[in-house]
């Protein structure tokens, strides 16, 4: 009994102490807070507050015009128990992210690494070419030419000419082709944010590390990549992973443009196309917010997992 009591008072003292040291620490770091303040004031106003409001809205029924009405967990229950299309779109999104996420992450890294071998104008030109799909606005329009469903579509034309197929395939209107086609287009689009961050990251690696590694017995570029380059750019790798997760889970524009919304038998439906359907078409913002919250949790979970894996790079 006595020891227990002693422990609690001890705890209380250390808590008061903690508060005091915290205040001291905060005072000591005044300058840090001053530097952080301009960004974070705006960040709270324009990002944190809207996100919190959306999460609160997910527990309401809200049609934008009338005041939101509290409905508890109803939106979430409806999502998982009644909304079959949500389950389909969730499944599509997970398949989509599981394939495009890792592959396009690798592609970003691979191409950034190869481009880093070149110098000067060649390098700038190559960077531009590979970043082109991301900088040209909605560049995926090009794929319409390739995938047109009649025999004038480039892909159909090619396959017919060499007699792989007997009649033109409706690439974007056939259920089993929609998801694979979207995955390929998304991979083509994927050299974006992460790619440029890797290019910049590779530039900041000290050249003398490579010389030292060559003397230490690194024999070829692949060993150099694993033992020197990757560990030296870990912060960029983590950044790239987060960007990749946000992109591959949130895919929607490409699907809506190429396959339509709703797509044939919902084969191209993703969580965000479903959200757009409810948010912008039916104005059920409460329900749309619930979808966003679920997607958010999914991304946070994936991010935790990925960051754990990345910490091991080069070890």
């Amino acid at each position, binding site marked *: 009994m006595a020891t227990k009591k002693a422990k609690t008072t001890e705890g209380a003292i250390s808590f008061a102490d903690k508060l005091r040291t*915290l205040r001291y*620490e905060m005072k000591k770091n005044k*300058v*840090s807070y001053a*530097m*952080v303040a*301009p*960004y*974070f004031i*705006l*960040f709270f*106003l*324009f990002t944190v507050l*809207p*996100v919190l*409001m*959306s999460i609160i*809205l997910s527990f309401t029924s809200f049609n*934008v015009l009338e005041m939101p009405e509290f409905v508890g967990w109803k939106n979430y229950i409806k999502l998982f128990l009644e909304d079959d299309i949500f389950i389909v779109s969730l499944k599509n999104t997970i398949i989509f992210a599981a394939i495009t996420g890792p592959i396009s992450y690798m592609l970003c890294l691979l191409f950034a690494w*190869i*481009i880093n*071998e070149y*110098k*000067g104008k*060649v390098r*700038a030109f*190559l960077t*531009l*070419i590979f970043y*082109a799909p991301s*900088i*040209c*606005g909605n*560049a995926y329009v*090009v794929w319409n030419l390739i995938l*047109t469903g009649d025999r*004038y579509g480039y892909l159909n034309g090619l396959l017919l000419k060499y007699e792989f197929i007997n009649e033109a395939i409706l690439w974007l209107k056939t259920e089993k082709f929609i998801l694979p086609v979207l995955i390929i287009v998304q991979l*083509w689009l994927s*050299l974006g944010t992460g790619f*440029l961050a890797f290019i*910049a*990251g590779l530039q*900041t690696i*000290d050249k003398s590390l*490579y010389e030292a590694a*060559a*003397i230490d017995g690194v024999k*070829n*570029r692949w*060993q*150099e990549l694993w033992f020197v380059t990757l560990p030296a750019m870990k*912060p*960029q790798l983590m950044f790239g992973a987060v960007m990749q997760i*946000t992109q591959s*889970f949130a895919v929607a524009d490409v699907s809506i443009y190429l396959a339509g919304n709703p797509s044939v038998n919902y084969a191209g439906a993703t969580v*965000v196309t479903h*959200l757009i359907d409810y948010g912008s078409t039916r104005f059920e*913002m409460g329900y749309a917010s619930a979808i*966003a919250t679920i997607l958010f949790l999914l991304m*946070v979970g994936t991010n935790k997992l990925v960051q754990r894996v990345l910490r091991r790079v080069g070890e």
Partner: protein
Amino acid sequence: MRRREIIDYSDRRWVPWWMRTKQKQLNRSKAGNGLLFLLMFVCGIFMALPLVMIINNTLKPLDELFQYPPKIFVKNPTLENFTDLFVLMNDTWVPFSRYIINTIIITVGGMVGHVIIASLASYPLAKHKFPGRNILFSMVVLSMMFTWQVTQIPQYLIISWLNINNTYLALILPSWAFGMGLYLMKQFMEQLPDSLMESAKIDGAGEFRVFWTIVMPNVKPAWLTLAIFQFQQMWGNTGGTFLRDEELKPLQYALQQIVQGGAARAGAGAAVTFIIAAVPITFFLICQSNIMETMTTSGMKE
């Protein structure tokens, strides 16, 4: 182990550029170089498709634009799409230069402000140990995972509440608080060796001075990259629901209005697509070439 000599030809003017690139690298086999070049070439053709198509489309006369089945390459190149566009530009209700000025204000304001504010905040997050920094940082990372489509309405409410609706600030201020920029800058600043800042502080430099004269020059590739992202983001902004007055609308909006004039404007539309892509590409190339320049001249890292 076979030692390879490090021959740096890069300083000798008489060596052609392709020699310089090859001799400078350690641990590179010819076969590997060839293989990677082949890979780059094949993939490069696919990646360059949108660029090739946009350029060819702007040069196509109307009949070729409507040709079915469509062809990628132009047969009789002409510049009449641009003259069409210029005629339409002179025809707008608000003088066209007004749209251009609006876009410059929004794009430059959004970009410069964001790069400075986000960098300023990421320096202490990366290098100072103060209470709350982990919470602040993880909030930024988490915020990027929330779908923006649903936060738009709350954001609109906040902007109306601040009474900055229908001003440039309605576009510029939220853009300063984008999460990605802070995350990117923090990751790069984390890599700077502490000794770099310490020596400046011993010499009596304050934190702001250290930030501006030591930290920022050393993460130049990072903020140039961030500038590219932010430029692209702001350039693509049409003003949406935030700008109601015609005199405040950006170029992007005006150009889209021109394209929406129907099939007769397909030629001008192709020219618009070209201009919309060409400006960020120019900016991209300027930034990219500067990224390289800095890093060849400084070897500041440990």
